[in-house]
C-alpha cells in the first residue's frame, strides 16, 4: 500500500484541476486482487487491459492538453518579456518605472510558476508511469502471466510519457529566468529563505516539494528490489523546506 498512499498524498498536494487525472491505482489493484490466481482468464485479462488503456487515454488527453497550454503560455511570456525589455529603454518618467518594476516582478513570478507547473507535469507523467509499472508487476506476479513487458513497451511510447517537449520548454524557462532575475546577493538570501517558506504555501511550490519528497520516499530502497527497480534516490545537498509545519 505504500505506493498507493504516496500517490494519494501526491494527488492531494497537487493542483486542483489535476486531482482526478492521476492513475486510479487503488481500483486497479482491486481488480488485480480479484483476478483468480489459479486460472488467469483471458476475459479478465482483457478487462484489465481495457482498464489500463482507459487510464492511459486519460493521461494522454490531459498531458497533451496541458502541453498545448504550456506552449501558448510560454509564447505569451516571451512576448511580455520582450515588451518589458523594450520599455526599459524608452521609459524615463517615474510612473512608468514603477509600472515597469511591477511588471517585471509579475513576469518573474509567472515564469517561476510556469516552470513549476511544467515540472509538475513531468512529475505527473513519471508517477503515473511508475504506478502503471507497479500494477503490471502485481498482475504478473499474481497470475503468472507476462503482461508487463510488452505492455510497458507501449506505454513508453505514449504521449504522456514522451515528455521531451515539456523538458525542452523547462530548460528554456530556466535560461530565461537567468536573464530576468536580478543577480543574487548572498547576504540577503537568509531573509529570502523566510519569504520562501511563506511562499511555499503557494500551491505550485508546495506541490513541487511534495513531489520531491514523494520521489525520495518512493526510491528509498524497496523490499522487492528487482531488476526493474530504480536505484535509490539521493538528494544530498538539497534541503527541502518542509511544508507541513508551515502549512498547519
Amino acid at each position, binding site marked *: 500500500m505504500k505506493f498507493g498512499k504516496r500517490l494519494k498524498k501526491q494527488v492531494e498536494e497537487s*493542483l*486542483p484541476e489535476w486531482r482526478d487525472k492521476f492513475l486510479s491505482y487503488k481500483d486497479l489493484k482491486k481488480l488485480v486482487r480479484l483476478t483468480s490466481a489459479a486460472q488467469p482468464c483471458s476475459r479478465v485479462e*482483457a478487462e484489465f487491459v*481495457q482498464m489500463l*488503456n482507459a487510464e492511459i*487515454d486519460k493521461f*494522454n488527453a490531459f498531458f*497533451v492538453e496541458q*502541453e*498545448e*497550454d504550456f*506552449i*501558448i*503560455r510560454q509564447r*505569451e511570456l516571451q512576448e511580455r518579456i*520582450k515588451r518589458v525589455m523594450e520599455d526599459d529603454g524608452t521609459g524615463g518618467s517615474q510612473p512608468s518605472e514603477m509600472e515597469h518594476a511591477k511588471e517585471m*516582478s509579475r513576469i518573474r*513570478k*509567472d515564469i*517561476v*510558476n510556469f516552470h513549476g507547473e511544467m*515540472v509538475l507535469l*513531468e512529475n505527473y507523467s*513519471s508517477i503515473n508511469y511508475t504506478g502503471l509499472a507497479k500494477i503490471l508487476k502485481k498482475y504478473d506476479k499474481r497470475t503468472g502471466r507476462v*503482461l508487463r*513487458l510488452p505492455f*510497458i*513497451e*507501449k506505454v*513508453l*511510447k*505514449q*504521449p504522456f*510519457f514522451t515528455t*521531451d*517537449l515539456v523538458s*525542452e*520548454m*523547462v530548460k*528554456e524557462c*530556466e535560461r530565461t529566468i537567468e536573464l530576468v*532575475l536580478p543577480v543574487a*546577493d548572498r547576504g*540577503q*538570501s537568509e*531573509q529570502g*529563505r523566510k*519569504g*520562501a517558506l511563506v*511562499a511555499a504555501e*503557494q*500551491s505550485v*511550490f508546495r506541490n513541487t*516539494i511534495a513531489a520531491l519528497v514523494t*520521489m525520495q520516499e518512493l526510491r528509498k*530502497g524497496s523490499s522487492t528490489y528487482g*531488476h526493474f527497480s*530504480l536505484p*535509490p534516490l539521493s*538528494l544530498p545537498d538539497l534541503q527541502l523546506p518542509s511544508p507541513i509545519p508551515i502549512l498547519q
Partner: protein
Amino acid sequence: METHSALPVGNLNMQQFCNSGSSGVMSSSLPVLPNTLEEKFPELPDPQHVPLEREIQRNPLPSRRPLFSSPSGFSPDLSFSSTLAHERHTNNTPFVSRSLNAGVSLPSTYLSNMEIFQVPNNFPKDPTEITWCPDSVQSMLNCSDGVIMGNNQIQNSSNKVSNDLHKQNEWWSDIMNVDWKDLFDDTTISESQPKVVCPPAQSSSNISMQQPQTDQSVPCHSGEVCAVTGASSSATTAAAKPRMRWTPELHECFINAVNQLGGSEKATPKGVLNIMKVEGLTIYHVKSHLQKYRTARYKPDSLEGMSEKTATQSEELPSLDLKTGIDFTEALRLQMEVQKRLHEQLEIQRNLQLRIEEQGKYLQMMFEKQYKSTMDKTHCSSTVEKPTTISSDQTHSTAKIDLPEARNSSTDSKITEGFRQVSNKWKMSEVEPSNEKETDALTSSLPPSKHSRINDEDS
C-alpha cells in the same frame, strides 16, 4: 473503428487503427525492422521519392543537445519519417501493409534489434532550443516533432523510421477516416502550397511546391498532426476530435495566421485553418486552440495565478503582496531551485526507466532467440536441457545486470561474468562482442559518480 474484445496481450488498442493487414503483423511482440531505409523507398512512387530527397537536402541538421553525451546520429530520420508520413497519410493502406510486412519478414532481425538497446537515450526532439524567433529551417525540421513521440530511446535509424511509420500509419489512417473530408471542404486549391511532400494524386492541395504565402509567416507545413487517440476514446471521439499534439513551431504558425487575420479576436477558426494549410489539422483543433489562445492573452495574470488562488489564500498574505523586494526575489529563487532539482531528478529517473526497459526487452529477446534456436537443434540431446539452464542463468544475469547503485563491487564483477557465461553458452558468436559492448555501454553511460566501480570492473 476499434474493438476491445480479444486484445492481443500487451497491445494497446492503438494498434487496431492499423488496417487489418498490418495489425496482425504488428501484434507480434517484437516487430522485426528493416535494415535500411532504402528498402522502403523503392516502394514509394517516384514523385514522392524525389521530393523526399529534396526535403532531406533542405534540412540542415543543427546539433542536438543530448542530456547525456552521446552521438546524435539520427536526426536525418526525423525528416525521413515525417515526409514519409506525409506521403502516406491518405489511404495508402494496402501500401502501408505491404511495406510493413516487408519490414517484418526480413530475417536478419536480431542484429538490427540489438542496436536498439545501445545506450544512451537521446532526446532528439528539438534540434535547438526554442528561440524567440524560430526560423523557417528549424520549423521545417521540427515538423517531425509533433510526430515522433516515442522513439527517443531507439538509436538505430531504421528502427526509428519503422516505429515512426508504424505510429504514423495508425494516426494517419485514423485521421484519414475522420477528418480528411473536412479538410478537403475547407481548404482551397489555389492557395500557395506548403513545401512538404504530399502524395501526388490524392489531396487537392499538394501539387505545386511554391513558397508559403507571406513574408512574415513561418511555413505552416511544419506542423504535424498526430491523432493521438488511444483505445477507448476513439469510439466516442472518432467523428469529433482526434487528439492533436501541438508544437511550438505549429503554434508560431498559428499565431502568424491569426495576426494576418487581424488578431485573436477577429480571427476565425476557418480562416486560420485556411491560412495555416497544415495537413491533418482540423477546424476543431484550431477552434479549441484559438480559444485557449484568447484566454491566455487576455487574462494572463489570472491564468497564472489561478492555481494559487484556488488552493490557498496566498495572494492575501501580506508578504506576498510585495511584488518587488529582495525577499520576494529570494523566494522565487528558492522555488526555482527546488523546481530545477525536481526536474533534474525526473529526467534522470526517466532515463533510467527507459534504459531498464530496454535492457529487459533485450534480454527477453535474447532468451527467446536462444530458446528457439536450441529447440531447433533436435539432433543434440544436451540442447534440450539448455533452455532450463539458460533460464536460470538468464534470471541470474538479469538480476545482476540491473543498473545498480547499491550493489557492491563483488556483484559488479558477477554482472559481466554472468553475462559472458550466458552468452558463451548460447554460442552466438555474433552476439557476444555486442553483449559485452552492451554491458559496457549500459554501465558506462550512467552517471559516473555513481557507477565508477562498475566501469572499473568491466573489461
